[in-house]
């Protein structure tokens, strides 16, 4: 018997580490009502407000819908309310059907049909109460650590990220993968300059080819637009923190996934396998969108490393913050869960990795992270840009 935690087993067999009722708007037009309904209900209700409009080009719309459905299907969600204005290309019914297909209790709310925002708030409150009753039937039960899908992310990187925090989180990923679980890291622009190392670790040619193709596509966007990636990567903050080039940033970034073979590469917000080993996800480098992609893919817990300090959380998955910068720990320890800056005092990467892994199990068991305490719940969906659509059409 491996290590275990207690979680909520869902009808589809996956295990949640939280039991939220998600309030999911299908467009920006339903975002304010979704947030208000969730806020009025209490901390058990979690809204996922975003800025995407009521109408998008086909490929962009399909991706948005996949994210919305994925968020509702995340095993941390016990029930979901899908909210629309009523004029969206993405209907609440379509998203709710995809969520309900996994056995999750869902309801929909249409602001226009309800008779405007005031009436929608009142109807929304009733529906949320019913959904919460449904969700509250779930009880924590023992689950094996191999059932965890652990998403890892970095943001506000500096030179300590690649030296301390990322390798420590990577050591935790190695432990989880060894125990049979799934670890996932993303942000394809931050594979540039390190893709040869990842390619060598791919389990088969198909995975390798897909990885290299995705890196080419992300790098190609800079060429397509005739711009220099250096303006944005590394960011001015990364540069102040000692990172000079994207290659340097990437070489540090990939260490957060550990050292095990790369078993697959998922599209943005595509389902991540349970018990799948190390899996990559093709996402942009914007950390909030990248975290959301992995949560939509089913990650129950996120580890987020930062050198310069980041307070980012997520409404659906607890986010464990790890810093390798002793000064950042000193200044921002109330926003950070694990201090990896101790490697500069001689603690081994392996020992910090063990602390990250223990924190992962405790958080899975119900311990609140610093970002959960403070209800820091950033949410953003990656919108496929016109240039990307054109590039795809021309390919």
């Amino acid at each position, binding site marked *: 018997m491996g290590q275990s935690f207690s979680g909520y087993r869902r009808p589809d067999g996956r295990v949640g580490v939280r039991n939220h009722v998600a309030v999911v708007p299908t467009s920006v037009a339903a975002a304010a009502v979704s947030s208000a309904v969730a806020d009025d209900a209490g901390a058990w209700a979690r809204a996922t407000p975003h800025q995407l409009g009521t109408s998008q080009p086909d490929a962009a719309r399909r991706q948005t819908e996949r994210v919305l459905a994925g968020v509702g299907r995340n095993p941390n969600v016990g029930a979901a309310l899908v909210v629309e204005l009523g004029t969206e290309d993405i209907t609440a019914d379509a998203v709710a059907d995809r969520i309900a297909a996994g056995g999750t209790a869902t309801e929909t709310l249409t602001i226009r049909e309800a008779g405007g925002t005031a009436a929608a708030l009142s109807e929304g409150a009733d529906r949320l109460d019913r959904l919460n009753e449904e969700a509250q039937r779930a009880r924590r039960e023992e689950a094996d650590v191999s059932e965890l899908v652990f998403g890892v992310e970095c943001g506000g990187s500096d*030179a300590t990220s690649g030296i301390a925090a990322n390798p420590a989180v990577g050591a935790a990923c190695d432990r989880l993968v060894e125990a049979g679980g799934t670890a996932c890291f993303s942000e394809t622009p931050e594979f540039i300059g*390190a893709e040869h190392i990842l390619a060598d670790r791919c389990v088969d040619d198909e995975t390798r080819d897909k990885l290299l193709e995705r890196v080419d596509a992300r790098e190609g966007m800079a*060429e397509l637009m005739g711009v220099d990636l*250096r303006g944005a*990567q590394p960011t001015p903050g990364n540069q102040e923190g*000692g990172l*000079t*080039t994207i*290659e340097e940033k990437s070489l540090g970034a990939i260490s957060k996934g550990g050292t095990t073979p790369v078993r697959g590469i998922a599209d943005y917000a595509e389902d991540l396998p349970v018990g799948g080993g190390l899996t990559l996800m093709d996402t942009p480098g914007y950390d909030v969108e990248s975290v959301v992609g992995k949560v939509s893919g089913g990650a129950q817990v996120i580890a987020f490393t930062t050198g310069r300090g980041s307070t980012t959380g997520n409404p659906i998955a607890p986010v464990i913050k790890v810093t390798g910068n002793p000064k950042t720990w000193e200044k921002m320890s109330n926003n950070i869960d694990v201090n990896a800056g101790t490697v500069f005092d001689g603690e081994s990467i392996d020992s910090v990795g063990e602390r990250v892994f223990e924190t992962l199990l405790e958080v899975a068991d119900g311990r609140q992270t610093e970002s959960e305490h403070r209800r820091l719940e950033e949410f953003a969906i990656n919108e496929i840009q016109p240039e990307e659509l054109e590039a795809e059409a021309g390919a």
Partner: protein
Amino acid sequence: MKGRVLDDALLLLSESDNVGTTVDDLGSGTEVDFDGRTVVLSENVPFGHKVAVESFSAGDEVRKYGEVIGTATQAIAAGEWVHTHNCESTRGRGDRAAAGGETA
């Protein structure tokens, strides 16, 4: 920590690296022993930034983690700060493609 710390001052992440990472804010004149040679910092270098432990000519590869992280854009002497003012990426350079007329 992975790698080797020289004189509690510079972290060499791989033996093939030609830059070290400072593990503290270091002042100009700081002396670091690197395998019997003394590298003297010619300027202040903040925590986490890089210092040349060998001399570079323009165009030479800059190595950290045992990998190429960019190229020197000018001559760099051992002990100098290595950053965006004298080292650049070779990747994601749409500007070069544009200058060469290769952009779609």
